[in-house]
């Protein structure tokens, strides 16, 4: 009994995610329960995805009311069209796809511009190299971080968007292509590769080798 309780507590997830019986379930199963009309599953989806959708929407435009409405519309759509919705193994991807479409549609209405191969001028998608995870131990690492940031500045909005999807959101090329409305996954790959080529110009491999030479032995503990 007691060990159970402790185990339950240790499972509390980080980043303010809300833990429920669904947290340990696969996306596909949670989604299926929601499709079957399980209200708790719907709430679980709302609690866990509302904040990240709110952030994602703001990457296209910083109009709080517009983004809030778009996210609200999305959840209302899910509830109303529940019986007609398809399966998914990746809830975040499914929701992102709907939200991206809704927000770009709302923005084109306002501006009379259709966003297919371009992002609105309000798009953010700025990238940070976080301090906590990118261990800085000496001068050459500070140098690498600085150059990386310079390189990132040179990327286009759409390259930044793809980089975020690939490295931060963990989407694959097929998913990125679907999100960004490419006809082939290959185009998403090319977009990421071109970005990496730009970054490489700013951070030559020789610099990375110096960096490697200076990495402390302590890190080996991680594996």
């Amino acid at each position: 009994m007691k060990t159970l309780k402790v185990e339950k507590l240790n499972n509390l997830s980080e980043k303010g995610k809300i833990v429920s019986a669904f947290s340990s379930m696969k996306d596909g199963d949670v989604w299926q329960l929601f499709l079957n009309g399980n209200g708790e599953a719907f709430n679980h989806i709302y609690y866990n995805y509302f904040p990240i959708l709110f952030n994602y929407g703001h990457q296209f435009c910083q109009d709080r009311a517009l983004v809030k409405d778009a996210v609200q519309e999305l959840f209302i759509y899910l509830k109303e069209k529940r019986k007609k919705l398809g399966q998914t193994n990746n809830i975040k991807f499914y929701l992102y796809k709907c939200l991206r479409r809704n927000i770009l549609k709302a923005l084109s209405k306002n501006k009379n511009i259709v966003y297919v191969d371009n992002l609105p001028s309000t798009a953010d998608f700025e990238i940070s190299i976080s301090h906590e995870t990118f261990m800085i131990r000496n001068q050459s690492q500070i140098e690498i971080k600085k150059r990386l940031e310079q390189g990132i500045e040179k990327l286009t909005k759409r390259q930044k968007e793809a980089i975020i999807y690939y490295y931060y959101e963990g989407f694959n090329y097929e998913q990125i292509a679907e999100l960004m409305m490419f006809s082939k996954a290959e185009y998403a790959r090319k977009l990421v590769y071109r970005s990496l080529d730009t970054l490489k110009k700013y951070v030559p491999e020789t610099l990375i080798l110096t960096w490697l030479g200076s990495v402390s032995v302590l890190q080996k503990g991680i594996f």
Partner: protein
Amino acid sequence: MNYNNYQVSDFIADDFFIKWVKSPDAESEYFWQNWLKQHPEKLEEVQNARDLIVSIGYRNQYQPTEDEFIEVLENVHRKQNKFQPKRNFSIVYRALGRAAVIILMLSVGWYYYQDKKVEKVEKTVPKEITYITKSTSRGQNSTLNLPDGSLVRLNAESSLKIPDNFGKENREVFLSGEAFFEVNRDTLRPFIIHSGDLLTTVLGTSFNITSYPDDQLQQIAVVSGRVSVMNLDTSSNNYSKEPALLLPKQLLIYDKESKVNQIKHDIDLENVVAWTEGVLIYQNENLKKILKDLERWYGVEISVSPAVDQTGKYSGTFDNKNLENVLMGLSFTSRNFKYRIKDKKVWIEK
């Protein structure tokens, strides 16, 4: 795939590698752990590629406020009710329904007609709310099941006052002492706890509130979900407009004297809920506070000789121990006092 000549820039462009970093599964975990065992010289490059990948994120992060979170949720639920599917009544039912409405209108009319002749009808008097109070005495604790399915573990010498209309419009209770709440989620009827100078509002979460009238500090620790806390301004008798929002592993400590909130992050939740499992946990706690707890916990009265220094800090875990064991443990670590137990009385002496 031959990874032997891979450099950092190759790893960060490799799908299978990224998949392992971002969402490892049994297959990728097995492959990369094995590969690293065979290529220990690549360890640093792999580690650095990993570091680089996980350090990438949004520079500008936009967070919703608690109000926005709740507002949208409520709108979503309300909209749903408005668009409930139309029922397909048959003509017969519709006709019956119309007939029923007509009969009802007639009878209501008749009632009013009759009514006018009679003297003034008795107006509905606002019903006085009555409360049910559940209390525990020293040395006791108990579990309460509320009508909405929420669970309250009441610690020793505590009481929970529940209005008889609990759950009708909202879910409101009054706490004195300490309790662990596991609140069932009901987004339309928030769960509100009055305790001392603090007003705690939640939709559905688990958390612990400590609010003994004779303690200087009130504490609220969140285990799961979100909790909003407002302070009572005793001079105007109003609650603060801006609530403090607490997330899991956060602890709010309110000092009744200075009237200041302090929020601690990343607290050890095991300590918070230990009492519900019969475990006492202390980390650098002074003797005065510990003895106060022991009085409540074991239902005894403890007299402390003035010669005993009560300011020293103690740490320890007592897992379902009897009072004798706990006192023995404390006196052993401190070498500072002796104790005597007789029935429900305890003496602490130099």
